[in-house]
């Protein structure tokens, strides 16, 4: 049973560029959440997708957008990259059922120069 997978593992971009990160949830999961984790800090919630719709959103600007596909996989898009967007981006999947834990992928390390 494959766990949560993310691609790419590492990415280097320059300011102003756009980036797309991808996530495939654990088999059987229907909900995908995205987090940004700066070095030495806890994860910060970006948004959550369920049934191909954004259900919740954290305190992130509209430059951060996402999508969920019918197979439950998801993409995170960041436009007009800033230096401060450099971070580890984590994807987590879960079942929508209340209280089910989230399982995380290995993350994508984004460096903006």
């Amino acid at each position, binding site marked *: 049973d494959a766990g949560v997978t993310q691609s790419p593992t590492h990415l280097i971009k320059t300011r102003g560029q756009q980036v797309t990160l991808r996530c495939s949830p654990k088999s059987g999961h229907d909900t995908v*959440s995205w987090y940004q984790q700066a070095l030495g*800090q*806890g*994860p*910060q*919630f970006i948004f*959550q997708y369920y049934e191909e719709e954004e*259900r*919740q959103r*954290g305190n992130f600007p509209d430059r951060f957008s996402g999508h969920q596909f019918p197979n439950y996989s998801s993409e995170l898009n960041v436009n007009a990259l800033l230096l401060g967007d450099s971070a*580890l981006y*984590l994807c*987590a999947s879960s079942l*929508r*059922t*209340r*209280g089910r*834990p*989230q*399982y*995380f*992928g*290995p*993350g994508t*390390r984004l460096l903006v120069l």
Partner: protein
Amino acid sequence: AQTVTQSQPEMSVQEAETVTLSCTYDTSENNYYLFWYKQPPSRQMILVIRQEAYKQQNATENRFSVNFQKAAKSFSLKISDSQLGDTAMYFCAFKHADSNYQLIWGAGTKLIIKP
């Protein structure tokens, strides 16, 4: 708003010792879930243990157990017979029982197991 506090930025113990990581939270809700996640240097966030607030019995998973004190809003993690592979950042997280709510995270505790 819910908040999660981990007051120990860093801890270190000798291999085979027992260590307890503290976590407190603030909420006015009665139904919720609490989690401990581990993030080793490999950076993969791994679920360690989960506690349902309506259950009085403390959760256990092999060498990992929690001390859940609902009235005190405390949720500490005890690691028994610590191993070198336990070296990691440990995050405490809170989630409202309603599926529409997100995880609220503590700042983490860096745990170092010394040989």
